[in-house]
């Protein structure tokens, strides 16, 4: 069966780093927000100081992922040509697709949207990652360097930063739960969608799930955007 390249090696690697970092951040961060319910995690890891250390190491990995995506793909887009950013940039079609998809899921329409390489859901997930990363970076830095932060902000700002950090962490867990549902529990992918690891997708699958991308490939378009 013919296969089509969907992700480059660098994309596979950066997904692995980002996912590993963010999952470690949840494991080490949620017990700090919910010590009554998840106190067993720090106990298992060797106490809160160890948990906090692991949380900060994972935070560095998460920041590195965001910085890499912005600089590498930003520079590639600016100086070389079509990059991953060009593929995931939000377009009017995505809003139309979202409306069409919602109607289809609610049983109001039989038409399913015809997707390109990335669906509106994939694009929304990607950009929400950036939004969350920015919030975590700001609030996390305030909390990490709390003594230095107090030099130029009142103490109540630190408390606000803590609540915002924890609140968005919960929103982020919900986002990851949704992402996991799509790549693990969704009957089309159950048990695991392996294309983010292998980088390739069977052509039949591309034809069925990403018809517009398949048409583009048939017309001889570039398929392996960096």
């Amino acid at each position: 069966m013919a296969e089509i390249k969907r992700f480059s090696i660098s994309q596979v690697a950066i997904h692995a780093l980002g996912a590993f970092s963010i999952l470690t951040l949840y494991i080490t961060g949620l017990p700090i927000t919910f010590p009554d319910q998840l106190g067993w995690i720090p106990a298992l890891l060797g106490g809160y100081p160890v948990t906090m250390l692991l949380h900060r190491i994972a935070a560095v990995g998460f920041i590195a992922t965001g910085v890499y995506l912005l600089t590498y793909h930003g520079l590639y887009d600016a100086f070389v040509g079509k990059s991953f950013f060009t593929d995931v940039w939000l377009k009017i079609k995505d809003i139309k697709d979202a409306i069409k998809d919602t109607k289809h899921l609610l049983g109001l329409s039989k038409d399913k949207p015809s997707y390109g390489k990335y669906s509106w859901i994939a694009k929304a997930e990607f950009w929400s990652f950036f939004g969350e990363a920015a919030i975590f970076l700001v609030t996390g830095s305030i909390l990490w360097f709390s003594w230095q932060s107090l030099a130029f902000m009142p103490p109540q700002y630190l408390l606000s930063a803590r609540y915002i950090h924890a609140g968005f962490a919960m929103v982020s867990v919900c986002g990851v739960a949704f992402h996991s549902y799509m790549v693990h529990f969704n009957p089309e992918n159950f048990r695991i969608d392996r294309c983010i690891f292998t980088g390739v997708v069977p052509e039949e699958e591309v034809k069925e799930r990403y018809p517009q991308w398949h048409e583009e490939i048939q017309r001889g378009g570039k398929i392996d955007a960096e």
Partner: protein
Amino acid sequence: MKKYREAVRLMQNKIKYSGAVVVAIIYISFIVAILKVQNPVVDVFVTIGINIALLFVIVNLGALLYGIITRNRREAN
């Protein structure tokens, strides 16, 4: 192989809704935790929900590592 695929297909149908229920429990328990509802029954629900969320995250970490480790298995075959 055919038997295996059939088993997976049956499992897919079963997991479709149970997966959605698990995700819904996680969402609801977070919302209730934020609202700080003072009730012993709700407390138990929140504790279960948040622990499921964390186990969900741990399972995902396992799936990620499995995917990375077995990345080249297909090529090796």
